[in-house]
């Protein structure tokens, strides 16, 4: 019915006792997500969310006790690398890191470590995932999207909300929306998610939200033209961004001629992708 998360997802929240962690855990639980455990070192033994969710000191203990199969990370940036490594070591199959501001070399070490393992990492610096009506992992507002057959994958946060909102305004629902995050080095890339959508019987078409910097969109274009049968619509942010300046996202810096929005749009068009100029155009292009 969806990719990566669904109603059987057993979610663990790393940093559940923090302000952000607790706030969003409440929202996720209210949405219907099964939160089975939280982890905060030195807070093991506490219970949170009206006494419904136990807190553990370490991931290994939490996973053993609760059978969690997905973890979402809300810890401060300075602890995020540790949190990801701990989740990998605890053999969590799906790890979602919301935290923004993770050091790049720390992420290199995480990716290097992951190469030995089978975990799937979404993020960091991402809004997380939502499978409308079933499960939400992260911070995507639950009320701006509904169940449907459009898959959404994005490097952005609020721009994703904007697109989900525009889709909903036009009566379009979503199978799963995945925010892969805007950092220069992250876990899952566009092509991983495109492959999952291509194989998902409940996804008819895919919206890809990219931005300047890096070559993820170019690789996606290659993948789409080689492997995708489902139609793809793309929106690329940063057409007006001047080269060499960092536009908020650590990933959105244009390095030495590559990573330009115009180049990305050109190769995506060549791969048969419909390009939207702004969010409200997307529903029109789908119809």
């Amino acid at each position, binding site marked *: 019915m969806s990719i990566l998360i669904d109603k059987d997802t057993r979610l663990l929240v790393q940093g559940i006792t923090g302000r952000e962690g607790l*706030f969003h855990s409440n929202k996720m639980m209210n949405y219907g997500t099964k939160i089975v455990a939280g982890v905060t070192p030195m807070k093991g033994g506490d219970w949170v969310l009206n006494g419904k969710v136990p807190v553990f000191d370490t991931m290994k203990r939490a996973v053993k006790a609760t059978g969690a199969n997905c973890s979402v990370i809300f810890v401060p*940036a*300075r602890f995020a690398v540790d949190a990801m490594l701990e989740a990998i070591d605890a053999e969590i199959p799906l790890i979602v890191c919301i935290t923004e*501001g*993770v*050091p*790049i*070399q*720390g*992420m*290199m*070490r995480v*990716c*290097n470590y992951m190469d030995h393992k089978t975990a799937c990492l979404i993020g960091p610096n991402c809004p997380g995932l939502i499978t409308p009506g079933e499960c939400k992992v992260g*911070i*995507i*507002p639950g009320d*701006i999207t509904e169940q449907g057959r459009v898959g959404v994958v*994005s*490097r*952005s*946060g*609020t*721009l*994703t*909300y*904007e697109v989900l*909102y*525009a889709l909903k305004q036009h009566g379009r629902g979503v199978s799963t929306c995945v925010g892969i995050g*805007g950092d*220069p*080095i992250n876990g899952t890339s566009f092509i991983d998610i495109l492959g999952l959508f291509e194989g998902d019987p409940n996804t008819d078409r895919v919206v890809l939200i990219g*931005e*300047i*910097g*890096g*070559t993820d969109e170019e*690789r996606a274009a290659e993948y789409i033209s080689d492997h995708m049968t489902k139609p793809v619509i793309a*929106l690329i*942010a*940063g*057409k*007006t*961004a*001047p080269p060499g*300046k*960092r*536009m*908020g*996202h*650590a*990933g*959105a810096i244009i390095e*030495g*001629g590559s990573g330009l*929005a115009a180049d990305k749009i050109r190769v995506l068009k060549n791969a048969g992708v419909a390009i939207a*100029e*702004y*969010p*409200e155009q997307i529903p029109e292009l789908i119809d």
Partner: protein
Amino acid sequence: MKLHEYQSKRLFAKYGIPIPRGRVAATASEAKLIAEELGGRVVVKSQVLVGGRGKTGGVRLAHDAEEAEDLATQIMGMKIKGLPVRKVLIDEAANIRTEIYLGVANDRRARCPVMIASAEGGIEIEEVARTMPEKIIRLHLDPTQKLRRYQSFYIAQSIELPRDLWRDFYKIAYGLYEAYLNTDANLAEINPLVITDDGRLLALDGKMVLDDNALFLHAELEEMRDLDEEAPEERRARMYGLSYVKLDGNIGCMVNGAGLAMVTMDVIKLFGGEPANFLDIGGGAGAEKVSAALRIILSDPNVKAILINVFGGITRCDEVARGVLSALEEMESNIPMIARLVGTNEEGGRRLLAKSNMITAISLADAAQKAVAAVKKGDAE
């Protein structure tokens, strides 16, 4: 965070990389003193955080201490690409036989560091990449290992370095990689790495860019930040945790989220306008932050209209509205403002702004069109 040449080279020296003797001066007389100490010919080098200083006359050769003082006076009166020169580095002059490029950078795609080298040193590597891509050697490195001798030999051979310099080259490449790893750098480059006419390797110029997100691991490096080198509004933005980039247009933008902020700029342009800035207030910004953001935009004299585009999630629209109102209380302004607030507490936000003289919009396209129209109207009046 970019480091100055003299800061980068000081770090290099710490990692065993040979650099010219020299020191930084903040006044011309100090420059003279240093030149006297060094003796012989010296190079007077402006310390500003931009590339291409040489072409603009920011790097000059002095034959003696008097000339060094003169040149320092001249250079410290300059602005290079808009930045005033406040310091000069006085380095002993080297006799150069060959110029090489050697750098370590992040490879996003391979998700690991990459060492880059070229026999074509002394010019910007981007320029080499454009004109002579075959002259660039790339080698991916393991972020958990130190540089291995065979890796440096492979590079040395590929850039056709004379074999008698391979061992020294190894020490330099090893040190550069250590410097990159130990400072959490995004870039560490020596350009040019020269062979002197007496056959030694010497790091004549250097550049390091550190990862701002990793500075908490390196308190000693944070102290190297040169506050004078940031545009004052960018510094103010940074202090408030805002992400702000000044641009040349006249429609100020305030948006939550980097991607949405870029799209907002794109849509303004699409409808014939020119954004005056990129500004991301981040997630969950409170009234105070929003107020600071608006004041930064208002302080730009080019701004003829302001577009506020907020998609509430963690960010609450009523908080944004409160911030806007508080900024407008402090700084009165006749600049037309277009607000488009959607999402969390959207009703509350609209209600608050209804009291002010604000144009509202229902969609991003609508908002952008209204902002462009407002500028045109202003121009016509």
